[in-house]
């Protein structure tokens, strides 16, 4: 049986109808048309599907949409202010922190959550926090550089 859930997505109130087994990723991509988050490993390992639920990174591939009812959701589409990119998005471009781009939305959202929690993390803390996001093109050095740039360290 389908259930109506209410989400605040990137600052806008949205209502979606989902079956209990629908994942948050399916709801966001297929019903809200926000396709920045990608399906990768489908088992919470790679981080390509990362979304911020009430500000915290979660694997949307393995999170039931019904369980997100009433929550605030941030997707990569919600980061830019109009035409002005988020500082992390700018830094990722400046540092060449992406090649194919499949993992990028997950990395940027995770980095945003880190900087919201801790505006000036150490390099060690950046590596720890982002350690669960995989980039198969291997841009790790550039990604860390980009986050350090925004953190001003």
């Amino acid at each position, binding site marked *: *049986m389908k*259930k109506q859930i209410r989400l605040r997505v990137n600052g806008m109130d949205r209502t979606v109808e989902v*079956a*209990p*087994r629908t*994942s948050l990723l399916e709801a966001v991509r297929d019903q809200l048309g926000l396709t920045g988050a990608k399906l990768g490993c*489908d*088992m*919470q*390992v790679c*981080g390509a599907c*990362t979304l911020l*639920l009430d500000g*915290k*990174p*979660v*694997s949307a591939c*393995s*999170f*039931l949409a*019904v*369980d997100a009812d009433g929550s605030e959701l941030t997707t990569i589409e919600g980061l830019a202010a109009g035409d002005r990119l988020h500082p992390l998005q700018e830094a990722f471009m400046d540092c060449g922190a992406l090649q194919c781009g499949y993992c990028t939305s997950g990395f940027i959202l*995770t980095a945003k*959550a880190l900087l919201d929690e801790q505006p000036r993390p150490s390099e060690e803390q950046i590596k*720890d*926090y982002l*350690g*669960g*996001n995989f980039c198969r093109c291997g841009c790790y050095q550039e990604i860390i550089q980009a986050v350090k740039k925004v953190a001003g360290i």
Partner: protein
Amino acid sequence: MNDFEYLEPATVAEACAMLKRYGGEARPYAGGAYLSIVMKQGLIRPKALVNIKKIQELKGIRFDPSEGFVIGALATHRELETSQLIREKLPILCAVEREVANIRVRNVGTVGGNLASGEPLTDLAQVFLALDARVAISGPSGDRTIPLEELFVDLYQTSLGEEEILTRVIVPPPPPATGIEYIRFSSSSVVDKPCVGVAVRISLNADRKTCGTVRIALGCVAPRPMRAQGAEALLTGHPLSPQLVEQAAAAAAEECSPISDLRGSERFKRGIVRVLVRRAMAVAYDRASHASTLRLRSGQAGSA
């Protein structure tokens, strides 16, 4: 994933009643970090998921003078990792949590789910076993509290009844002059599940030299988290000596029953157990001795 009913009880009693109504065909659902995977793979196909996340009485981490440290089943890995109380009084738990999975799993996965899944490749059970933790369980026929050891039965099997809810983990305050260490070894990436996990706790006798209570808990090297009781017995009543450490480490490596898999062969894992027991024991003993002097100076409780 199969279709299922989705239920949201507000109390433990309601949750147990719902589970009972489905007669074993429903599952409690906490963070879903484990359930989502096994359901997607079709390994289990419950008729209903009983989401316990709205149950207030299962939340929070606190100190209760009569029970000790009480960790609600719904406390997430991340809550434990960042808890001020735990950081001050049981810092070993924060240290373990920093190494569990990745930030996303730590944000959703709960302590209750971690233990109740009976998953073999996990970390928390070892540390809780070393601390003599107990778990409180509620069901249609009442409440019970059991030593954590009695929760684990076999791979993915616990002694929880189908209509029961694990409500909290209770950690008694460690005695003075206690030291504990946990070492987690992963054979591929650090964000992989552990290959071997070893916790050692030593509480010194009043002479502050000889071992009083010793706990050696091993994870990932048997169908369930286990204590190496033969190894523990070798140390009890004795001061730590290099020979004794070596004997106990060898005994622990004998007592476990690892399987060969992609994370290492049986022989390799026994070797790792031996090394980790040795290392963890040295650190735990050092901390125990240090805790005793600290206590003498400032009257603080033994730091674990």
